[in-house]
């Protein structure tokens, strides 16, 4: 299988879907400059640069999606979604329901997020939980190029608005991507490592930190199961619950702030639905209630690291032994 970066996997998904369906178009601040291969193949009407105005980019996408097109928009960095909240939350997320089902909004919004570039809190702010909390929206965040391609293809084919978050730290890391036109269903997590002692649930770059933690734990005789959520809404509750019912222990890990994050949702889900299986407290590892600093050491310190994850998991396992 050829290796490509997540950036290129996104490009491949766009190319395949634009070939497949003439109603797919992409626009955003500079996307026609950066992805000029798309302009070459599909023309300037289907691949457009826009004015620097996130609200109207998103609003135009919502209007177009509600009128028969399938737009993909690039809003660059997640904090810039703040300028598009009305269009995404109040229009895309609600107008279907409020109109009694008269409209649907097949629309994908791309945004980058997370540590890696030292650009500070106005570029690096993981806000995916906002959209999980808001009705009518789906939320996806892949951890590798192959998933990114398969999930983006599914997102483009989905008849609902999908927020597609790209972890900056993973953007230029290569990974194997099949040549086949694989479409990964939204709402299906991936068990990236099996284990019976403790479940580590994560998404985005911290999936890799969980895998490293699982290695460390393995060397100490603890078998960790690692779940990559891939899609945050719909959430693959069944896979999470099945794993915790097996292991009895749960560590949820993400880069986003802990308070009211996706980790809180998963912990609450498990405390409600798999309580009887729990052998130890649920641990959440996530960002503090602070913006992210640009300074490299602080930026790194914000993100849960493999050592902290394995230490937390080990504590849970020993606790039960004790």
């Amino acid at each position: 299988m050829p290796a490509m970066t997540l950036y290129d996997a996104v490009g491949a998904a766009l190319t395949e879907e634009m070939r497949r369906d003439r109603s797919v178009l992409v626009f955003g601040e500079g996307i026609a400059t950066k992805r000029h291969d798309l302009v070459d193949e599909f023309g300037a009407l289907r691949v457009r640069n826009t004015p620097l105005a996130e609200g109207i980019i998103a609003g135009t996408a919502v209007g177009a999606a509600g009128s028969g097109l399938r737009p993909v928009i690039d809003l660059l960095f997640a904090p810039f979604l703040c300028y598009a909240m009305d269009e995404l939350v109040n229009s895309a997320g609600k107008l279907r329901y409020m109109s009694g089902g008269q409209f649907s909004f097949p629309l994908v919004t791309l945004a980058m997020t997370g540590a890696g570039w030292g650009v500070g809190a106005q570029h690096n702010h993981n806000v995916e939980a906002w959209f999980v909390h808001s009705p009518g929206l789906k939320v996806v965040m892949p951890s590798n190029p192959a998933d990114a391609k398969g999930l983006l293809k599914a997102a483009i084919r989905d008849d609902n608005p999908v927020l597609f978050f790209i972890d900056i730290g993973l953007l230029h890391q290569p990974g194997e991507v099949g040549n086949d036109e694989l479409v990964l269903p939204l709402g299906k997590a991936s068990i990236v490592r099996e284990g019976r002692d403790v479940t580590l649930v994560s998404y985005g770059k911290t999936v890799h930190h969980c895998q490293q933690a699982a290695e460390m734990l393995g060397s100490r005789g603890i078998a960790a199961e690692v779940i990559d959520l891939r899609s945050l809404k719909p959430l693959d509750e069944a896979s999470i619950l099945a794993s915790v019912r097996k292991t009895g222990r749960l560590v949820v890990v993400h880069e986003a702030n802990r308070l009211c994050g996706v980790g809180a949702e998963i912990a609450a889900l498990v405390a409600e639905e798999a309580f009887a299986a729990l052998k130890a407290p649920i641990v959440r590892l996530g960002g503090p209630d602070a913006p992210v600093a640009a300074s490299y050491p602080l930026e790194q310190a914000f993100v849960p690291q493999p050592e902290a994850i394995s230490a937390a998991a080990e504590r849970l396992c020993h606790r039960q032994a004790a």
Partner: protein
Amino acid sequence: MAPIHPEIDLCHLLEQMQLIRAYEEAIVTGSAAGKFPGTCTSVGQEAAAVGVVNALSGDDLILTNHRSAGHLLARGADPGRLLAEVMGRSSGYCKGRSGSLHISVKELGVVLTSTIVGAELSLAPGVALAQNMLERAGIVVCFFGDGAACEGSFHESLNLAALWNLPILYVCENNQWQAFVHRREAMSRDHVADWAASYGIPARTVDGNDVTAVLAAAQAAAGKVRESRRPYLLETYTYRTRGHFEPDDQAYIDQAERQSWLNRDPIALCRDRLVADGCLSPGKQTEIADRVAQRIATAMAFAESSPFPAADELTRDVYA
């Protein structure tokens, strides 16, 4: 006075305006009696709605907002299904989920209604883009208020529409009020049309209480958009004679200003001219009044006898 356009009978416009007025008054009465929630009525603005909507083709699309009864009824919406929607009944155009503030009727080309002030401006370019990309002929008409013109989405929308050559007829209903704030307290200019020029978008302000003037200006404007496939902004200068939302004591209103507009009531203006021109006999007046009253009575009966949505509607239609 001859009708502006061969096919359009001015008596028909008068009847539409009377229907809108009667519909709004039925809501005022019903909501005051506690029978259903109040609404943002369009009383005093009937000519602005009727003049513009009658200038459109059947394949044109309309975006409207919270103050939409005039646009919907002029476009031919069934007052019964509208009232049912206001009352939250399942026979409403949006199954009762919208209530009065965000009624869309896709079958009539009234699409994506949002009550977020400024949202119609943010959605219109995408609707127009789809018309272009899917090679549909109809233009897009975006109704918005003077208040909406103060939101940033106004600037972003006009800039994009000008840049991308989108076939949008922007119609600003400048009714002097932005909820409880007079437009003088909110706008650095008196006319929204002044703002359009700086995007290279042609614009015009018309007397919004004169239905024939609005019709003529809207026909010209819509024609221009249809032909050039570029945006145009028409400002209908008018006045909201009732409160922002029912009930509203209007204690904050300058009564002299209100009275000067009441003296130019769009329905009375139109009727007086028709009578003066000998086009409206007392008999025909009665006929119209009776027909309007009958339609509203039927509509009210339909709405009131419609059921509320079933409990399982709570989570239906969230996702496609």
